[in-house]
């Protein structure tokens, strides 16, 4: 129960956040941060349970018929994520209170940030695949709102839409994939599914389910070729970038891969798809980072690269690789979060994020510089920081897979070092430059987070045992699907990984030194037709397709609409009639008498005359003649009531037509001959269909009519001799009730149409 409460508490507090923010002003951030802080402590308290393989869990039904249960489970992997989410969440909320100080919408900001946090906790802790999906989508939505926080800028709106569409598309694939997984495994409870890896991998659903799930994970975690939304998402305020787009949400995909790897991993498909995409992403992100000049975009690309590296490691799937992945996850969250916060502080204080305009700020912003330096050292993988441990492990894992993969990982490492230099050293050292705002140290709320995260990088680096037992081991066990313990150490001796590390730092440093020329050189190679371009194009294409289709279909011509309906009718019914053997020839029919034949000819002639008449009154007269002819048919074939009604109504209709035509224009020949012929063809087709249907229906009587009942009971039970009238007012009185209602409504309508004049001033509601 407590664990469900922990997840949902964020939603509750989110609702209160706007009010709280209005009441407490600047202190609101500090107060609201108490929630994630408390959650952090709570999750820490759950760690021993997870380490003892007895994770806290809770389950309740939500929509059992749909396979959706409200079940949560806090195992090592989930807790590792939950701690990142709540821990960094605490710092980010405090940070936001400084960053967005004075912003009138800060209340909403807190609300959505907390919503996001709760949703993200849900992703990490859900034990039901659909429940996980529910939270997954909520993170997409809150990310959308947060990216578009400065929604008056068009670029922010476009970026928000892009992020939502890309992750939303992946989300839909994920939903299908999870459902297929459920079909394959017979349950949607993750902890059960994870135990059935062999069944799942043997299922015919395995391949489609895996591909769909991977699509979901890759879009969320900004894997190549879906990575482009992430740099654009830097339109969001920096606390959001730090929190969602570096430390937590983008790792949801990674989390999902790690979570499912015991169930779905271990196949060649897994290894090549996950590993391949991961490697491409790692390299593409690392390369693109080299060319950036905007601090946040630079960090975003390097985040893409790191996400790729994580994916690669999970794809490789060896024990060592998964261990490296878990460690990198934590290390990256710490240093990248810190660097983003630093970037925000710089932006906030100097008014620019352009790295070419930043330099020599150390004297003004010592604490920020300290945080930046530590985080950058960790990112560059220098001892004694946590990043170093992570990098060693990664290299060791890569070395198992031969020189090519090692080279790729080292290349990404170079880019890390480069980025670390640009963010951690560039702005603070060297020549002091002019900036739009005169800088001074950021307020405590804004350096506290960065310094804490950077400090943790150092602390864990120095004392890795603090996390290895309680945090890393359980998470690692969950990812490999068996209980294993991990020992982390700073110093592994001079091994190949260490040598590679040294090479990386030196070469990366070299790149940093020549950063200016390098950037201009690379930007000449810039690739303008990438996936982002494709996204734009497909959006344009979609809009063009939509407009084109709608112009053709919904063209405003009533005739065309009628055409389409008539063709559908004749097509469907005609085709069925012919292919399904519905055609019959009437056998038992009444004979024909001459006057009846003449009457038939008269009706047809009148109908024909109505269609070709040049004058309105002529047409109405012909119409009336056809109606009287029909009335005569009724009279001849035993329906005097019908005949009488038809006769009266026909007369009244003619009067109404005449009255109305008095106000209407004369007939006009508006269509050319060709379209008249086409119309005639359609009309004859439809008429022919009706004729054949009537003939067939007359030919087939499957069951006797229920009419005998009315004939027998009209007099004794309903006290009437005119059976038609008895049916109307008694047997089927409710039909008649409806019918006179129709008449009453029609009268209201005629009255309103002819008499109502709207006054012009009240047009706000109408078009």
């Amino acid at each position, binding site marked *: 129960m407590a664990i469900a409460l922990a997840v949902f508490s964020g939603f509750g507090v989110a609702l209160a956040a706007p009010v709280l923010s209005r009441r407490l002003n600047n202190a609101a951030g500090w107060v609201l941060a108490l929630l994630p802080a408390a959650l952090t402590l709570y999750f820490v308290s759950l760690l021993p349970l997870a380490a003892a393989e007895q994770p806290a869990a809770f389950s309740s039904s939500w929509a059992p018929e749909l396979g959706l249960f409200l079940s949560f489970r806090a195992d090592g992997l989930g807790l590792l994520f939950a701690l990142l989410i709540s821990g960094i969440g605490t710092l980010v909320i405090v940070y936001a209170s400084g960053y967005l100080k004075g912003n009138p919408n800060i209340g909403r900001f807190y609300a959505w940030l907390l919503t996001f946090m709760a949703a993200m906790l849900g992703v990490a802790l859900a034990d039901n695949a659909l429940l996980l*999906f529910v939270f997954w989508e909520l993170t997409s939505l809150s990310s959308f709102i947060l990216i578009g926080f400065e*929604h008056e800028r068009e670029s922010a709106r476009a970026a928000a839409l892009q992020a939502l569409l890309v992750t939303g598309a992946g989300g839909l694939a994920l939903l299908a994939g999870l459902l297929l997984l459920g079909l394959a495994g017979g349950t949607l409870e993750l902890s059960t599914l994870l135990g059935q890896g062999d069944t799942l991998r043997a299922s015919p659903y395995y391949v489609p389910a895996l591909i769909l799930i991977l699509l979901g994970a890759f879009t969320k975690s900004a894997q190549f070729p879906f990575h482009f939304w992430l740099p654009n998402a830097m339109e969001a305020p920096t606390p959001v970038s730090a929190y969602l787009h570096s430390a937590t949400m983008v790792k949801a995909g990674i989390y999902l891969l790690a979570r499912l790897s015991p169930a779905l991993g271990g196949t060649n498909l897994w290894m090549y798809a996950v590993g391949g995409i991961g490697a491409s992403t790692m390299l593409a992100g690392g390369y693109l980072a080299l060319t950036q000049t905007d601090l946040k975009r630079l960090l975003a690309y390097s985040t893409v690269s790191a996400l790729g590296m994580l994916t690669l490691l999970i794809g490789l799937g060896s024990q060592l690789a998964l261990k490296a992945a878990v460690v990198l996850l934590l290390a990256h969250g710490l240093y990248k979060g810190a660097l983003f916060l630093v970037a925000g502080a710089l932006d906030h204080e100097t008014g620019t994020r352009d790295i070419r305009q930043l330099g020599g700020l150390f004297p003004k912003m010592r604490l920020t510089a300290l945080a930046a330096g530590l985080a950058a050292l960790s990112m560059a993988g220098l001892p004694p920081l946590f990043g170093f441990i992570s990098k060693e492990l990664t290299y060791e894992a890569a070395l198992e897979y031969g020189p090519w993969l090692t080279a790729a990982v080292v290349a990404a490492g170079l880019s890390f070092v480069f980025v670390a230099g640009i963010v951690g050293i560039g702005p603070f050292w060297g020549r002091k430059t002019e900036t739009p705002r005169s800088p001074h140290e950021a307020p405590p709320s804004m350096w506290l987070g960065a310094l804490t995260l950077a400090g943790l990088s150092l602390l864990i680096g120095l004392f890795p045992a603090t996390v290895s037992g309680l945090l890393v081991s359980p998470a690692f066990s969950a990812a490999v699907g068996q209980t294993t313990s991990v020992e982390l150490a700073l110093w592994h001796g001079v091994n190949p990984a260490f040598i590679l590390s040294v090479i990386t730092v030196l070469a990366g440093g070299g790149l940093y030194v020549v950063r200016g020329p390098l950037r201009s050189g690379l930007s000449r190679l810039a690739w303008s037709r990438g996936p982002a371009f494709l996204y734009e194009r497909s959006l344009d294409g979609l809009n063009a*397709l939509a407009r084109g289709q709608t112009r053709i*279909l919904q063209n405003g011509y009533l005739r065309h609409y009628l055409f389409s*309906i008539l063709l559908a009718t004749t097509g469907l019914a005609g085709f069925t009639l012919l292919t399904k053997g*519905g055609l019959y020839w009437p056998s038992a029919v009444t004979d024909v008498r001459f006057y009846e034949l003449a009457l038939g000819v008269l009706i047809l002639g009148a109908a024909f005359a109505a269609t070709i008449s040049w004058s309105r009154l002529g047409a109405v007269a012909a119409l009336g003649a056809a109606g009287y002819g029909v009335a005569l048919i009724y009279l001849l074939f035993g329906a005097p009531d019908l005949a009488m009604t038809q006769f009266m109504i026909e007369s009244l209709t003619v009067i109404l037509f005449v009255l109305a035509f008095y106000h209407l224009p004369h007939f006009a020949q508006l269509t050319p001959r060709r379209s008249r012929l086409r119309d005639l063809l359609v009309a004859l087709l439809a008429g022919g269909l*009706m004729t054949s249907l009537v003939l067939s229906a007359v030919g087939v009587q499957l069951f006797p009519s229920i*009419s005998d009942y009315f004939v027998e009971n009209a007099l004794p039970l309903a006290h009437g001799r005119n059976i038609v009238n008895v049916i109307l007012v008694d047997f089927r009185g409710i039909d008649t009730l409806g019918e006179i209602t129709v008449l009453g*409504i029609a009268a209201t*309508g005629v009255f309103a149409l002819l008499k109502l004049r709207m006054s012009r001033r009240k047009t706000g509601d109408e078009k």
Partner: protein
Amino acid sequence: MNLTLILPITIPMLTAILTMLLLKSRRAQRAVSMLGALALFVASLWLLADVWRNGIQAEQMGNWPAPYGVTLVADLFGAIMVLLAGIIGLAVAMYSLVSIDPEREAFGYHSLYHFLLMGVCGAFLTGDLFNLYVWFEVMLMASFVLMALGGERGQMEGAIKYVTLNLLSSALFLSALGLLYAMAGTLNMADLAAKFSSITAAQPHGLVTTLAMLFLVAFGIKAAVFPLFFWLPASYHTPPAAVSALFAGLLTKVGVYALIRVFTLIFVQDVGYTHTLILVIAGLTMVTGVLGAVAQNEFRRVLSFHIVSQIGYMIMGLGLFTPYALAGSVFYIAHHIIVKTNLFLVSGIVERLGGTPELKKLGGLYQSQPSLALLFLVPAMSLAGLPPLSGFFAKLSLVRAGLEVGQYTIVAVSLGVGLLTLFSMIKLWNEAFWKPVPEVVGNNSETAANLRAWLIPIAFLASITIIIGGIAGQTFALALLAGEQLMNPALYIQAVLGGAP
């Protein structure tokens, strides 16, 4: 005697007659209208409770035994639909009180409104095919007048298409009905089902299948499926928002209801043919509808085209033809009615505030109207299928049903269309809410303070979509029961005709 079946017809009828007679007194009309809507809502709740507790309810009108008289019958599906009519009737009646101008009221707005509800409820409750035609006509006639009431040019242009195409549909329906009677000699739906099941289960009868096609087209026009939907986008955005909302919520769904009813009860002899066709139509309807929405640049036009697209989802469950799939359809219909009506109600406020329906000229509402923005976001995201709102469960159940029977194409289409739905909802959001107010603002825009009362029905409906999602377990269980009833016509037949199940 069982009052629950007849009240949803007689209450709106009495209300309509009274408001018609009280036309001269605006206050009395409004009071009667509100009371009537409230009473209908209560009666519809009572009906659902009755059916839920006691199974399918049937009542022979005039005490003439089925199949000779007209039977009113409510299975869970029918009762759910009536409840939805009750909910929408209440919400839109509230909204009408604040938004409809006195001129329209003086010319019978309230009376027409309740006649429409009467027709809708009648259609949901009747167990007789010809009686269904009559209720269709009641509903249509009322909708014709409501559509045209006011006589604005746009209304007229929309109404002429709406009226013509719907009359064609009625003529088709009536013809199909006549032919069916000629063959089967009965009009009672349970009787038809019983008769058809007894002779054509082994070998489908070609003419019956042909007639099924006629019904498919006739109801398809009313339900606005591809390629018969054109009247809807041409007209739904033209009358006042309250009318649009009522139509958007209820009218096409009566067509869908009729399709589901006859294609689960009567025309089930050649499922491989008819229902596969329905599935194809469902897919095409989804795609053309959503593309139509993407192409629009006015608030209500976007919403109108989305109705078409979502009709596809409702039909999809019918095409898949499993209890689970039909449960999905029922759930989708319920969800859609609530959410779509709500969005149209929101559109009314947006157009009032902005003074224009054109997205290009709207903007700034997130800043100026945060509560309205939230009340838009809830139904919009629900429509797009975002969890944990009702739309998610609707989509989830259909997708799951499709996967279970291996219809991957339609599942893929439905998911893709879901994304496009999200896309165009975000378009509305971006343009009307997020975008800064454009330079040129309509001069007849109103102040927000006058519109406070407009938010009440909107909040009412928004809370329902949240609740449906929150208690998805219960609501879906109900839908599943309804789906199982639909897939087991014997229950319906027994309730109407009596005899052993």
